[in-house]
C-alpha cells in the first residue's frame, strides 16, 4: 500500500494568523518535509536563508519543505503534490479567509492517497467578538469553527484576559468539545498541529498494554520513526527554539500507547470515533477487526474531533495505538479500557 499523506487544512479569517501559523510551522518543521499550498505568496514571510530556490509558483526550502501557490485551482495544485507524494511527509493547505475549510478537509477523507490530519482554524481573539456581531460575517465564522479539529485563539497578547475568556466561552457554545489553544504570533506546539509528531505505531515498545511514556514528542527519539521513511537525516533532537522558551512539551503534553491483543468490532470502533472521550487530542494506530483467524486490519486515526477508519493490508502489521493529550487531561483509563 502506498503511504497516505497526512493533510492539514488551515482556515480562519483574514488577519487571524493563518500565515503566521504557516511561517511558524515551516521554521520549526524539524525534519517534516511539508508541501504547503497557499493562496498567495505575498503574505508568506519565509526567512531568506531558508529559501533554496524560487521558481514562480513554487518555492523550495532548504529544510526539505516546498511552498506552492494555489493560483486558481486547488485540485490541480494538490494533484501535483500527490504525483510526487514520496517526497513529502505531509501536505498543508491554507484555505482562503472566507472559505469553509471543511470542503477542503473532505478531500483528505476521500482520497486513498491522503489522510485527514486536522483542520486548524485560527481566530483573532482581539476582533472575534466584533466579527460575531456582524451578521454578514458571523455565519461564515461559525461554519469555519464547526469544521475545526483545533481552534487557535491567536493574538491573545493583543487583548485582555477578560476578552479572551469571553471569546473562549462564545466559541465553546459553538463547537462544544473541540480543543482550543491560546497563542500569540500563532505559536502552536507542533504536536497539536500534526500527527507526525506522535510516535509511529511501529516504534512503540514491543510489549505491554498501556505502556506509558511522558513524551516530549519532538525532542525525543520517537521521532525517528519518520526519518527512515523519507531518509531525512537531521530529524532528531532538534528542540524547537521558539517553543523551547518557557514551553517544554514534556510539561504540556502527555502520550499514551498500547499494543492491543484483542480483535475489535468494527461497529465499536466506529462508535468510539464518533464519540471520542474528551481530553484526547490525537490518536492513531492499526487494529484488527472481524474474525480471529481472518482479521481485517484497519488504520485508525483521530484528530481533535474527526475520526477515520480505513481498511489496510495486513502484511507485517502489529496492532498498536498511540494517543496524545494535554498533560493531566488525557483520558488514560478510558483509552486503556477500550484498547486493552
Amino acid at each position, binding site marked *: 500500500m502506498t503511504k497516505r499523506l497526512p493533510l492539514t487544512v488551515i482556515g480562519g479569517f483574514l488577519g487571524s494568523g493563518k500565515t503566521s501559523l504557516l511561517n511558524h510551522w515551516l521554521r520549526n518543521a524539524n525534519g517534516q518535509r511539508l508541501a504547503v499550498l497557499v493562496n*498567495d505568496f505575498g503574505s508568506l514571510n519565509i526567512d531568506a536563508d531558508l529559501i533554496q530556490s524560487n521558481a514562480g509558483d513554487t518555492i523550495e526550502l532548504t529544510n526539505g519543505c516546498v511552498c506552492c501557490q*494555489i493560483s486558481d485551482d486547488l485540485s490541480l495544485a494538490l494533484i501535483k503534490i500527490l504525483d510526487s507524494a514520496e517526497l513529502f511527509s505531509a501536505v498543508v493547505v491554507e484555505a482562503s479567509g472566507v472559505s469553509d475549510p471543511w470542503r477542503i478537509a*473532505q478531500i483528505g477523507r476521500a482520497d486513498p492517497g491522503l489522510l485527514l490530519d486536522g483542520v486548524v482554524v485560527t481566530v483573532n481573539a482581539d476582533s472575534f467578538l466584533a466579527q460575531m456581531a456582524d451578521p454578514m460575517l458571523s455565519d461564515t465564522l461559525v461554519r469555519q469553527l464547526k469544521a475545526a479539529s483545533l481552534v487557535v485563539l491567536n493574538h491573545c497578547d493583543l487583548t485582555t484576559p477578560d476578552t479572551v475568556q469571553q471569546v473562549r466561552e462564545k466559541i465553546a457554545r459553538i463547537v462544544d468539545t473541540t480543543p482550543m489553544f491560546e497563542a500569540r504570533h500563532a505559536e502552536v506546539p507542533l504536536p497539536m498541529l500534526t500527527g507526525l509528531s506522535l510516535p509511529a505505531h511501529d516504534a512503540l515498545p514491543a510489549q505491554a498494554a498501556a505502556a506509558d511514556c511522558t513524551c516530549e514528542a519532538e525532542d525525543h527519539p520517537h521521532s525517528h520513526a519518520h526519518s527512515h521513511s523519507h531518509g531525512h537525516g537531521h530529524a532528531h533532537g532538534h528542540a524547537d527554539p521558539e517553543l523551547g522558551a518557557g514551553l517544554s512539551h514534556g510539561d504540556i503534553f502527555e502520550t499514551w500507547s498500547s499494543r492491543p491483543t484483542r480483535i475489535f468490532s468494527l461497529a465499536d470502533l466506529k462508535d468510539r470515533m464518533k464519540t471520542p472521550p474528551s481530553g484526547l487530542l490525537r490518536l492513531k494506530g492499526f487494529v484488527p477487526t472481524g474474525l480471529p483467524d481472518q482479521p481485517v486490519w484497519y488504520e485508525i486515526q483521530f484528530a481533535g474531533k474527526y475520526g477515520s477508519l480505513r*481498511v489496510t493490508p495486513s502484511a507485517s502489521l502489529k496492532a498498536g495505538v498511540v494517543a496524545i493529550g494535554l498533560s493531566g487531561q488525557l483520558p488514560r483509563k478510558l483509552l486503556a479500557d477500550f484498547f486493552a
Partner: protein
Amino acid sequence: MTTVVYPARKIITMNPMQAEATHVAVRDGRVLGVGDLAELASWGPYTLDERFKDKVLMPGLIEGHCHLKEGSMWDMHYLGWFDRRDPLGKVWAGLRSMDAVVERLTQVDANMTAQGKPATEPLLAWGFDPIYFGGERMTVDHLDRASATRPIVIAHANGHLMNVNSAMLKLAEITAENEVEGVVKFKGGAQSGEPTGELQEPAAMFLVIRKIGTAGLLAPMTEAGVASFAALACMQGVTTATDLVNKLTPHDCTVLENVLTNDACSVRILPAFQAFHGTHGAALGAEHVNSLMPRNSDRLRYGLVKMMLDGSIQGFSSRMRWPGHFNGEPNGIWVTSPEQFEADFETYHRAGLQIHTHTNGDEASEVAINAIERILARAPRADHRHTLQHGQMIDAPMFRRMASLGLCANLFANHLWYWGDQHYEMTMGPDRANRLDACGSALAAGVPLAIHSDAPVTPLGPIFTAWCAVNRITPKGRLLGESERLSVPQALHAITLGAAWTLKLDHEIGSIECGKRADFCVLEDDPLTVDPALLKDVRVWGTVLSGRVFEARKV
C-alpha cells in the same frame, strides 16, 4: 480607399436621430454613412453590394457577460435538457429522459470505438441537469448500460455534481468504504451501501479529476476553443463579447493574441482579469492589466477587471438579505470577504481600471454598493462605469443608489427562463422571483442596463436573452413580474448600446452611425415587427465585423 454600400430591407440603427434606414456605406471597416442611396452616393464612388438587400441589419450584438469556455465545452458531449447548437451549427436536441441520455452516451461510445480510441479513454459529457428530472437520480445502472468498460464522466450543469459509471468508480478507487458524504451510496436493495456514481462537491469530484487530469472542465484555453467560440458568436449575431474571467497568464495572452489578430476571426473579445482568489496582490494585478493594454488591437481589448463577491442563487451559495432562502437553506458564501473586496476594489479603481463585480444575491449587491460608495468618497473618479454583474435580486431602492453612484447593471435575464420556476418555488419565493433581474426597475431608476447569458452557464444568444427580458415567462408558464418587462426596443438597446456602455465602447460600437465600427448583426427577420412572444425565433444570417462579412455556419 474603397467604399461599399449595402442596401438592406431595413437597417435598425439604434441611433435615435435616424432610427431606421435602407442603406449603409462602409469604408476602412467603419460606417461612412447611413441613409438612402442618394445620400451615400454623395460621398463619391462606391461599390454596391446587394447581398443583404432582403435582410435586416442591426448593430453587431454585444454579449457583456459570457466566457470563451462556451466554445471549448463542445470538446465534451452535450447532455442538456434544452436544445443547444454546437460550433458546427448542429442543433443537439435536449434530452428529456434518462433513456435518452443513455442512448446518446451509447452512440458516443460506439463512435469513439469506431474512431479507434482506446477503451481506456474516458467519455466526458456536460450539461446534464437533474433539477428537471423530478427527483429521479442518475446512477451507475444507467451509465453502465452505455458502457461498462469505458470510463464515463458527466459534469452536471450546476458545476457542483458529477455522475460516473462503474468503470470510472473503479479507476478512481471509489468504493463502499469511502467515508466522504459527497460519495452518494445506494440505500437499500441489492447494491445497498455501494456508491451510486453520483459525486457531490469538490472532495468527491476530486477523486475523478485526479484520474482524468486536465481533460474537460479544467482544460486550459486553446486556440481551437476560441475559434469555436467565434463560430458560435457569429451564429448568434454577436460581434463583441467578454471573457468575463481570465487569469491572463502568458499562455492565455498568447492564445488570445494568436487567434484574435487573425483577420479570419469573426469576434472582438474583451477578457476581464480575474482579480480574486489571490493569484496576485491587487496592486500587482492592476499593474499587470495596465501593462497589457498597449497590446490592444481591434479584436482584442484588455482592460476589464472582474471581481466576485458571492456564489449562485440556484446553488444556494449566493448571499441573500432577510428573509433568506425560501426553502430555509442557510445563507450562501462569500467568495471574497467584504473587507478584502473593498480594499482590492479601491486598488483597481485608483489604478484607473473598470471593474465588473459578480453579485448574485441582494446582500452581495448591497455590500458592493456600500463599498463603492465609500471608495468614491475617498477617491472620486468621473465616468468610472463600474458594473454589477448578475445583480439578480437588486430592488428599486438599490437601483436608485446605483444610479446616483454612476454604477451600471448587467442583469442575468436568461435566469428568468432557465431557473425562474426554481426561484419561485425554492430559492427566493414568489415576491422576490417576481422582481428577479428587474430590468424595468433598473431603467426606471436611470441605471445603464445590459443583459446577459453568462454562457456557457446558459447558451450564448443575445436575441434569446432579449426575449427573456421582454416576456419574463418560465417553462411552467409563469409570468414573473409583468411590470419589470422591457419593450422590444429597450431590450434591443440592452444587447447593443447598453452593453457597449458597460464596456466603455459606446463611442465605437453599439449603433450604426457615421464613424463607428462597421459591426452588423445580419437578420432574416425584423425583430421590431415580429410578435414579441416569438422574438427568440428571429433568424440570424451572420455578422459583419469591422467591415468583414461572416456567414454563420449551417448544417
